[in-house]
């Protein structure tokens, strides 16, 4: 333990840089995932066959190991953050699209009809009634996506996306030197738990009427 502390104390800049780079990759990938897959979920609801097809494809993507996925994107996108961010976005539809569709399907019919009866347009019903009511389901998926993204992004260092993976691999595993590996493991775990707690808090504020749902 003493050795780990000493290394951490002697390398604050490396640790800070790795944390910031990692957070950037995670936030960018997660934001892109939500921006792409929630609208796709909205489009696919109520369309059984396209939804089932999309879920089949998403399941296949989800199964492809990240080292293999990132590596397969390198010939197209080159070394760096790009293959990692695209890879991370490709992983998330299984959870995000599914939970968006499930959340929207769970909105009671009479609530939608009441909103229509009050003169809201379909677009207003979607934005003001259905999506807010589907929020707990969507947020449950977002939380799992963010937590897994923190972990998978560490592997990105192998294709040139620096971050916490730099501590774990370049500084640690590559030299069989334990302290940076332990620091990296603790940092990644702490970042995942912290982001999860923040999202849970955000959900409580955005949807105070709903209890946090499990994914």
């Amino acid at each position, binding site marked *: 333990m003493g050795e780990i502390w000493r290394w951490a104390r002697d390398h604050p800049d490396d640790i800070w840089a790795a944390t910031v780079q990692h957070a950037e990759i995670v936030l960018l990938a997660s934001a892109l995932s939500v921006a792409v897959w929630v609208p796709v979920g909205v489009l696919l609801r109520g369309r059984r066959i396209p939804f089932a097809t999309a879920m089949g494809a998403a399941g296949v993507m989800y199964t492809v190991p*990240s080292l*293999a996925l990132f*590596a397969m994107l390198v010939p197209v996108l080159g070394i760096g953050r790009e293959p990692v961010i695209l890879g991370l976005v490709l992983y998330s539809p299984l959870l995000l699209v599914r939970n968006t569709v499930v959340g929207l399907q769970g909105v009671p019919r009479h609530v939608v009809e009441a909103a229509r009866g009050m003169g809201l347009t379909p677009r207003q019903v979607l934005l003001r009634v259905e999506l807010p009511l589907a929020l707990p389901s969507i947020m449950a998926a977002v939380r799992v996506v963010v937590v897994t993204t923190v*972990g*998978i992004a*560490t*592997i990105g260092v192998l294709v040139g996306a620096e971050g916490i993976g730099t501590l*774990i691999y370049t500084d640690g595993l590559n030299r069989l030197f334990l302290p940076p590996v332990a620091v990296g493991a603790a940092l990644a775990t702490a970042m995942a738990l912290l982001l999860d707690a923040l999202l849970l808090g955000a959900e409580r504020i955005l949807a105070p009427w709903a209890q946090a749902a499990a994914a």
Partner: protein
Amino acid sequence: MSLLASAWDFYRANRPLVERAFWEHLRLTGAALGLAAPTGVTLGIAAAKLGRRAAFAVVAIGSLGRAVPTFAVMALALTLAGIGFWPAVIGLYGLAVPPILRNTFTGIRGVDPGTVEAARGMGLTPAQVLARVELPVALPLVSAGIRTASVEVVATAALAGLVGAGGLGAVVISGLQTGQDDVLLAGAVPIALLALAAQALFGAAERLVTPRGLRIGRGLATHEGRTT
């Protein structure tokens, strides 16, 4: 597509190398799963029988385990235990036990208490109830746990190649380090196919052990694995 063709050419020209890596990968996966399955099932049964505190521990380990990156677990195992086949197996074993444990626990806990009572009432001993009633009912969920673990292990075994424990990951890494896209793909494509094959194989096993009355659509709703 010409890139895939050149990866195929590389494979044809270096067949023994790629195939040795493939078998190494499979041996790593098999050893880790072979050890993790009995451990996970035994611990899962024990946790289900031991009451509340054990249940809390299972849930806590499960959610904490999700937050620790598999890459970090693997790197910790390799830096602590050294380079080689068995250190890699230890790391993979550590990753494979939790999903199997969690699913066994949930499966045993989910058995209808009425069913267990009826079995007891018929004169079965607790051990017989476990072997003839609880485990068979929990089996689909247990095998779903093994499926999740197998995909995770195939994926993470690729990282063993980083420090010379072999496997297909080593092929990917040498391709990355030398900037040879064909070599990289000759390692990456088989890893992806192996993970998909594990998913399909254990998915089929899962359907096979699911009693007909419990088959709803495509298998049971089970705990979602995590990608690695």
